């Protein structure tokens, strides 16, 4: 303090100003800037929390509406997708198809069911590849009416698509080989499948006339979606009627 008093007034003033500048710098760097940043963050957090509280309160207030909405949506989807199977059980499908085959007169000599596989539904497209050449384009320009309705772009003849798409669903393929069957039986069997009004499509039909009858193969694809409501029912369940139990399994 004595040394401070001994220096000239001008130097003393300069020293005080220097001290003030240093204190200002230190305060600005280590107190004011972090403090202002922190208050900005806190204000942001408070605003976000306020919004979250408001949203949560609104959600609670609307819970009855949400329950009604969820119930309606669920029922709508159950009706909308009643066409889908919800559980592709090999036993139930065998039972159902056997009933249909017996009823329509299909003489099946083999029945093969694939394991359930999950994939995107293969989109089958039938198209043809038109022959394009320069003179054809000229002719089209001269008389467009002659070429109306013809596809202008080359299409893939068959195009399937696979991949990690979100609409992948389980599919079971069933192959039925038949012989000594009439055309009417095959037709009626397919008709009875259509009358199930379910997601089963005939993937392949093969028939050959042999001595007045048909023999061939049918490949059917059954598609299902996972069950999301207890009221969904495929109508495939059956109750076994053959008595159980015997002393000799080979008898």
């Amino acid at each position, binding site marked *: 303090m004595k040394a401070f008093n001994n220096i000239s007034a001008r130097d003393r*003033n*300069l020293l*005080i*100003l220097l*001290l*003030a500048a240093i*204190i*200002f710098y230190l305060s600005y760097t280590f*107190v*004011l800037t972090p*403090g*202002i940043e*922190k*208050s900005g963050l*806190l*204000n942001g*957090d408070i605003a976000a*929390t306020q919004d979250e*509280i408001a949203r*949560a*309160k609104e959600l*609670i207030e609307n*819970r009855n509406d*949400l*329950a009604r*909405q*969820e119930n309606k*949506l*669920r029922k709508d*989807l159950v009706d*909308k*997708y009643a066409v*889908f199977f919800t559980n592709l059980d090999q036993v139930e499908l065998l039972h159902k198809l056997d009933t249909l085959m017996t009823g329509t007169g299909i003489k099946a000599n083999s029945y093969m069911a694939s394991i359930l596989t999950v994939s*995107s*539904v*293969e*989109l*089958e*497209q*039938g198209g*043809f590849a038109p022959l394009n050449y320069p003179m054809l384009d000229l002719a089209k320009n001269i008389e467009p009416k002659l070429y109306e309705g013809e596809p202008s772009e080359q299409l893939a*003849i*068959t*195009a399937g698509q696979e991949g990690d798409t*979100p*609409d992948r669903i389980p599919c079971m393929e069933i192959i039925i080989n038949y012989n000594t069957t009439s055309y009417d039986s095959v037709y009626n069997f*397919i*008709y009875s499948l*259509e009358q199930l009004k379910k*997601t089963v*499509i*005939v*993937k*392949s*039909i*093969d028939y050959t*006339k042999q001595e007045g009858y048909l023999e061939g193969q049918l*490949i059917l694809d059954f*598609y299902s*979606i996972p069950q999301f409501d207890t009221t969904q029912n495929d109508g495939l369940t059956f109750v076994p009627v053959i008595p159980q139990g015997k002393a000799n399994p080979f008898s």
Partner: protein
Amino acid sequence: MKDYNFFDEFQKRNKMHINFASPAFLGVLVIALIIVFSAGLMLYNTILGARLTSMTKELTAIHESQEYQKADELQKKIGALTEYDQYAGTAYEKIKSGDVLGTDFLYAFSRILPSSVSLQNASINRATATFTFTVPNRQAAAELVKHIDESDLFVQTTLISVVSQQGATGYNAIINSILKAGE
């Protein structure tokens, strides 16, 4: 005896003169302002922190309430159902567009065949079909291909061969076709 004035210092201070224009005063003022502002900022942040803590507690209490959990669960279910609808809808549209081999097709196909031809074999796999017919003559084969080609069932029809049957009258006509599908 000496007369002491114990208030001498105090009286001196009372007469202290502050020069507001002096750098010393300005320096002290700046420091004082910085200290006051810093303290104010810290106090402000403390208040904000306390407010945030209080609001967080309130939010936690709301989140833990049964009403909120039920409402939140409902909202998630609605979201899941909406997404489910979207995916199932896409899958269903694809299935519908691929469902071309049915009784409608078989019935329509029978209707376009000339009465004098007879189908011997049909192999239809999705959009690709191969037919073998027994035809009495090449004229009938030509009419058969024309009818198939002009029907709305196929986008392309190709006659592969017309071969006379061995040991019998008539011909075997093999036709490849591509069904209209996925449109």
